[in-house]
């Protein structure tokens, strides 16, 4: 009995003492961040924004080695397990992007910023709000350029459990409504973004203008060129297709935005007197004021393996991979000669005989310096070392050249001189160029950048002044204004052309300038789409030099006693790993919408042709 009393007393003591120390149990979690903390701490908000910036979408950009080999500018020469990139056809869903998860995150953040941020001052709040809206506009632009008009959702969609989901079923907006939404948003936020003007990795006033310049140019050219098609691609509800009458307005808006950037604090990168190296440095170095907005990388923190994927064969610092992107001959030939003639390489004379060159790089002499800055071709350097590109030897035999290559790279021929260079090219080989060219643009030359342990840290330019010049030139040209010429000529002067190298613009010149200036920067696919020429350029014909990736192999002539002995000749070839011509169908102008999206929302209209 006594025991029971003691037990009760002890229990009472325990319970009572527990009661007093409520706060002891009620401690702040060390592993959870509450809404109240997050929305009132600028540091936490910045790291939240870093997450969103990191999720900005891209198709072939941000060092997407594989994506860059899916068009006519290059083929895949890496591991065979991804050889499908040389043997595929754009599916109806190619480029599909429907990321309402990210849109919802941004919408949620915008709402929480209004309701929960009580300790931020007005300027901070305005800046965060503007950055979030910039990210949302960027995502909508990425969606509209691939899918056409998409549902414009600017608030969280919350189900009320009433059994009726129709309030959640937002129909697709018209294509132009999405572009108008992007324009409106950017116009409203650009003043608030000026606080970021010293940053290149957070959206600032000029970033908003750069997106405006690009988006309005897209809208203008879709309005114009879609209507010029024999049968414009459109849906009855306008989800796809922009009326031609709107083109001039969009071009004007684009030009206005471009001019505001050009008169801003940016300048074309011009730090290296060697024009070719200068073009490479522009994106490889983080100096200068060419880049407007970039995705930055830092050693040990955030790195990428573009250099590991694409380092030229002979300069690999790691094992297993290299030389993945092999630029195509048609791309190399799109760089014109500095005297203004078309860039077709002079490999054979009019009667079909090989033209022999003294040096293996001589055939590329006198070209647009951007070729050097973008592509590694025979006879050039990388990391201050000469590259060793030579396909084999051409032996004169019974009145014709016999082209032979060695089984092993870097071997000498029976005459004691080089047979096939250590950098190939080699047909049907892995991790060595199959076309005779390597990519230089974006491949970092920093020490150990091509190792997996260190990796590369050069940044990705989302927007740069070079693009804005070309946007301005195109918009002005489409509006019939003469000022476009000056913009193109300044871009070309940076590439080594004499001042005022062009006297008049044509659509072909502008389109080609964009191809060579902005190569591998995630523009070409969308450019060809908005000009409505993708189905003509990539027509799927196995005999079409644009749709098929071809290469150019250089051979050393072995013909003792002849003046051509020891010189080099070139042979155009089709790499055997490249299996199927690029084939863009009318259905690819707008990616198909996923079946589960259609199942979930009966108000969504399908895109034409799919």
């Amino acid at each position, binding site marked *: 009995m006594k025991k029971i009393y003691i037990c009760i007393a002890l229990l009472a003591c325990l319970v009572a003492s527990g009661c007093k120390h409520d706060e002891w149990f009620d401690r702040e979690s060390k592993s959870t961040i509450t809404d109240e903390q997050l929305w009132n701490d600028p540091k936490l908000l910045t790291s939240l924004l870093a997450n969103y910036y990191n999720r900005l979408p891209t198709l072939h950009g941000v060092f997407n080695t594989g994506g860059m080999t899916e068009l006519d500018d290059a083929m895949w020469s890496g591991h065979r397990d991804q050889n499908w990139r040389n043997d595929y056809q754009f599916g109806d869903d190619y480029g599909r992007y429907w990321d309402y998860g990210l849109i919802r995150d941004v919408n949620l953040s915008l709402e929480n910023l209004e309701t929960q941020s009580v300790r931020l001052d007005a300027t901070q709040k305005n800046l965060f709000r503007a950055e979030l809206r910039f990210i949302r506009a960027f995502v909508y632009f990425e969606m509209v350029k691939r899918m056409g008009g998409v549902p414009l959702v600017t608030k969280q969609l919350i189900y009320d459990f009433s059994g009726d989901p129709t309030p959640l079923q937002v129909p697709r907006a018209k294509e132009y409504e999405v572009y108008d939404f992007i324009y409106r948003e950017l116009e409203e936020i650009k003043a608030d973004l000026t606080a970021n003007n010293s940053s290149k990795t957070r959206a600032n006033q000029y970033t908003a203008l750069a997106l405006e310049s690009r988006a309005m140019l897209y809208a203008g050219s879709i309005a114009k060129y879609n209507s010029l098609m*024999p049968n414009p691609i459109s849906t009855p509800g306008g989800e796809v297709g922009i009326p031609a009458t709107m083109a001039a307005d969009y071009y004007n808006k684009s030009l206005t935005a471009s001019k505001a950037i050009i008169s801003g604090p940016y300048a074309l990168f011009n730090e290296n007197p060697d024009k070719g190296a200068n073009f490479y440095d522009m994106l490889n170095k983080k100096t200068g004021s060419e880049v407007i907005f970039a995705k930055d990388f830092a050693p040990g923190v955030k790195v990428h393996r573009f250099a590991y994927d694409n380092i030229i064969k002979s300069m690999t610092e790691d094992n297993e991979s290299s030389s993945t992107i092999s630029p195509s001959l048609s791309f190399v030939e799109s760089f014109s000669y500095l005297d203004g003639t078309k860039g077709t390489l002079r490999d054979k004379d009019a009667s079909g005989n090989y033209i022999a060159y003294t040096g293996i790089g001589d055939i590329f002499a006198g070209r647009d310096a951007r070729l050097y800055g973008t592509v590694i071709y025979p006879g050039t350097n990388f990391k201050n070392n000469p590259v060793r590109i030579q396909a084999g030897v051409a032996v004169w035999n019974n009145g014709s050249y016999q082209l032979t290559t060695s089984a092993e790279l870097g071997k000498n021929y029976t005459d004691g001189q080089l047979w096939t260079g250590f950098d190939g090219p080699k047909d049907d080989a892995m991790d060595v160029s199959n076309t005779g060219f390597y990519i230089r643009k974006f491949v970092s030359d920093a020490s150990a950048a091509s190792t997996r342990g260190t990796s590369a840290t050069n940044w990705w330019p989302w927007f740069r002044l070079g693009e804005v010049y070309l946007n301005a030139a195109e918009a002005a040209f489409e509006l019939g204004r003469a000022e476009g010429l000056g913009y193109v000529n300044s871009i070309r002067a940076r590439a080594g052309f004499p001042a005022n190298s062009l006297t008049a613009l044509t659509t072909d010149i502008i389109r080609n300038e964009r191809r060579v200036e902005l190569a591998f920067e995630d523009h070409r696919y969308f450019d060809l789409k908005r000009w409505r020429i993708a189905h003509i350029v990539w027509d799927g*014909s196995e*005999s079409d030099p644009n749709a098929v990736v071809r290469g150019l192999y250089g051979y050393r002539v072995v013909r003792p006693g002849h003046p051509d002995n020891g010189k080099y000749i070139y042979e155009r070839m089709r790499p055997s790993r490249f299996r199927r011509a690029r084939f863009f*169908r009318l259905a690819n102008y707008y990616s198909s919408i996923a079946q589960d999206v*259609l199942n979930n929302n009966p108000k969504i209209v399908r895109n*034409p*042709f799919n």
Partner: protein
Amino acid sequence: MKFKFLMILAISGSILMSGCEYDNFEAPEVTLSGKVVYQGRAVPVRNNGPQLELWQDGYPLKSPITVYLNQDGSFAAKLFDGQYKLVRRADAPWLQQASDTIRVEVRGNTNLEVPVTPYFTISGESYQKSGDNIIARLVVNKVVQSANLEFVRLYLGKSILTDQVQREVRVDAPLNSVVLGQQLQISSGALPDNLKSLDYIYARLGIKSTSAGEYYYTQVQKIALK
């Protein structure tokens, strides 16, 4: 003990057996076959090109069964018995119908002719070898009155799969020489070396309207060179 063991064996056995029924589905056994036709004639298409789609109602989620067309315009799909809706996809050389669903009742092997309306057709085609030259004769007919002609082309190839994508030679007929309903002649010019030496080659004609992304073709024809 032994009894208990047998009981456990029997129970677990029956659970496993019954599980089998839920896990395994019968494979579809019925074939729906047929061809796309215009005025009773099959409409040849590009290999790996235009498609049809089958849909079935009555399930909470929908997903299409893609039906691929052979280049002679025929198709076949393995299905279960049931009611299907057949849709002619728009990326094709024929007119897109506003309401293009065809209800298909599949009970056992079923044959189906799917009517389509091509923008243009080619009739009366013939090929003649003259020297190093292949001469094609054909008649172009317009079916959809609002359609405009973009290309009339002769294709020559090494394989039976010859079309706009796979071919060795492509020759365009000049459009101003095309008179609807009248015979037209396309000459290939001298055959290239890689075809000249062959025993036979394949020829085909294609016609494209500006309204479509795809060509209407004729059936592939084998031409003996030797």
